[in-house]
């Protein structure tokens, strides 16, 4: 039955995708891509990927939508009728699709327990996690320890994006093309009810983010999801109170500190493993008991990820928002 649900949702997903492509108003396209994210996240949930569903929802429907709106506020909203290379596009797309569909016929079917992916590496993780790391969430165990180096890379990907956006948008705005009138980003000043409710919610969202951060060993969650949630909570604060007020609460330098601090914390834990006689990112040597060491290591690196992600997402949001406000 859930398979049918999945197929239904996937069909909706396709309809949404086509709607996004056809929408002439970019604002509509952004809203539809919010729906798109929710749908694909629901599909992930049905396919047993709880952590991924949480991330996709927080990132796609939350952060990405807010970022795209922030960018749209700075550029034109209407799309000019396209005159792009349609023939070339169709040819490339058709070729790619043929390749992919050709490959499907030899692929294992959905849910086939005999598929190679379920035979080789994965069973080891499922069997050994309890003994070696002793956290129930195997996804967290792999993410933070077995493949912790990938996560270090992931952290630096988002770090690079943060540095990049800061760098790219650090240029003073060119006055030549600034024909749009400036807008005071005062927040939703005139809306009493959303403000009150929003203010009420902000601490709960941050609290929930912290729960997701530290509960990631036991349930879906972890540093990245928590970072995205906390960042969305603080973005909500900025939305209702305005940029300046939000920056007074969390200053830019604090954000930069968070970004760099998280990255340094993760790398530092790795180096500590090296100095204590193990390899890079070896947490077992952090404590006398290897399993306790793993717990400590996972806690610290997840914290690092959470810090950097929160800092980067907020920085990016402020970089866009600051450009829209009075200069």
């Amino acid at each position, binding site marked *: 039955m859930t398979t049918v649900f999945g197929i239904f949702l996937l069909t909706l997903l396709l309809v949404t995708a086509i709607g996004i492509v056809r929408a002439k108003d970019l604002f509509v396209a952004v809203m539809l891509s919010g729906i798109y994210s929710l749908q694909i996240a629901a599909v992930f949930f049905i396919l047993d990927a709880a952590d991924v569903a949480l991330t996709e929802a927080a990132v796609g429907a939350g952060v990405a939508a807010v970022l795209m709106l922030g960018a749209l506020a700075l550029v034109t909203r209407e799309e000019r009728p396209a005159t792009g290379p349609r023939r070339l596009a169709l040819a490339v797309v058709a070729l790619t699709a043929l*390749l*992919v569909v*050709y*490959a499907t*016929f*030899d*692929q*294992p079917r959905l849910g086939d327990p005999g*598929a*190679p*992916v*379920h*035979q*080789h*590496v*994965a069973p*080891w*993780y499922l069997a*050994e996690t309890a003994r070696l790391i002793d956290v129930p969430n195997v996804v967290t165990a792999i993410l933070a*320890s*077995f*493949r*912790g*180096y*990938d996560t*270090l*890379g*992931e952290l*630096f*990907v988002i*770090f*690079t*994006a943060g*540095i*990049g956006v*800061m*760098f*790219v948008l*650090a*240029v003073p705005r060119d006055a030549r093309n600034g024909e749009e009138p400036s807008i005071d980003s005062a927040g939703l000043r005139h809306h009493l009810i959303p403000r009150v409710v929003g203010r009420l919610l902000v601490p709960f969202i941050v609290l929930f983010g912290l729960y997701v951060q530290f509960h990631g060993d036991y349930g879906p969650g972890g540093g990245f999801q928590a970072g995205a949630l906390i960042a969305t909570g603080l973005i909500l604060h900025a939305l209702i109170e305005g940029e300046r007020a939000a920056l007074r609460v969390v200053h830019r330098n604090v954000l*930069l*500190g968070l*970004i*760099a*601090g998280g*990255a*340094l914390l993760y*790398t530092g834990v*790795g*180096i500590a*493993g*090296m100095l204590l*006689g*193990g*390899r*890079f*990112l*070896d*947490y*077992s040597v952090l404590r006398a008991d290897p399993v306790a060491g793993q717990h400590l290591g996972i806690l610290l690196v997840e914290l690092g990820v959470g810090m950097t992600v929160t800092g980067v997402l907020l920085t990016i949001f402020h970089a866009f928002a600051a450009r829209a406000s009075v200069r």
Partner: protein
Amino acid sequence: MSGLTHLPILAVVVPLLTAPLVALLRDRTLAWIAAVAASLCTLAVAITLVGALESVEYLAYPLGSWPAPYGIELRVDAFSALLLLIVTGASSAGLLIARDSLVGEVGSERQHLYLTAWLLAVAGLAGIVVSGDAFNIFVFLEVSSLATYVLIAGGPRRPALTAVFNYLIMGTIGATFYLIGVGLIYMMTGTLNLADMEQRISGVTELKPILVAGGFITIGLALKAAIFPLHAWLPGAYTHAPHAATVFIAACSTKVALYVLLRFDFFIFQGNLPDHEAQFRVFALPLAVVAMLVASALAIFERRNLKRMLAYSSIAHVGYIVFGAALATQTGLTAGILHMFNHALAKGTLFLAAASIGLGGAAVTFERLAGAGRRMPITTAAFVVGGLGLIGIPGTAGFVGKWYLVVGAAELGPAGVLMVVPLLVSSVLAVLYVWRAIEVAYFGSPDSARSSAPAVRAEAPLPMLAVLIVAAAANLWFGFLPSMPLTLAERAAEVLLTEPDQHK
């Protein structure tokens, strides 16, 4: 556990750890010193690795001490060490001149962010070449790509923005194609570790997904490596990036993508796909030949911007490298891999010279180049050395690579001898465009009304000049004594051509 054990990871960790520190340093000079120190340290690590690899086939480093297919493993062999040398060398050269060269291009209040992105690019590229895990390569590919976009976006004129946007779109499509390919291989083998993949892929009987994966990975990385029809992003990106960044990017970013491409095609697919070498040859050889001829011709017709001309020449030289690899013989691969090193040297020198000529953030147009031979004799001399290397004149490093390419092609018999023709034609074309630049530099008279270049004798500041002289000297050094890169390239070719069951 000796200090040597940690060498592979140090190549990644040193720049990675320095990057956030540099972001925190507001002072331009301090940030620059830290970045240079990190880059030089990484270069030292690379040199030590080359030394350490003389006695062993490869160095493996299991991260987090988890055993190989379950954890991520770094694996450094001769091929990776050579690439690491190129990456760190180019980065150090670029960074050493960055302090003088970035003035007028990147505002001093955001230079620490720029240098952070630079270190991240180094870490990303180093991470790719030392990694032994297919997905890990993707992650570091993205670190390096994002950082490279930032480096190019720092260009002082607005075409830099459109150029970097193009690159971002194409680069992301390329990386995503790679991800699809890795996903399909993972689906059929259940593993992500390259060495394990190589073993297990021979047991896969359903070939369609593997074949499609081969297609996706090859096309995706070809986009990143700017192999001929997929090169559209490259000229704009090289032309409009800040001069110092061009030195770094042009010398190594396409080569790292080629490295991954060769790893996959010769390491993973040849063991499983029947006649994969023949397929690769049929697919890649014509592309390489067309690239060598068309891109060289485009370079000749580029009459405005020196950097754009050199960028087209880079596309042609990617063609040379692919040509060598497509021969799929020991000599051919050696030649291709050696040419990676030599081309990085020659192109690095040329772009270093271009950076001196365009000092202060000016675009390096031919007008600005005019009369450089009188204003900046040393710089122009170095430019000539690099240009000769590009052509492949005996005595420069570029000659050795081309010589091996000719030998490798000729080994294939009569058809191979025929393949020598485009090599020679392309070299003749290279003579034409390099000569034109030299002619303008020595004999062109600057049109004082239109040129902003100072007419008096004015070499670049000493640090830039020193780096340039070292680079030009290296071109000559490795032209007469090519044994170090040659040995590495030979061993790399051996590794690539060994069948999976013959390892260990």
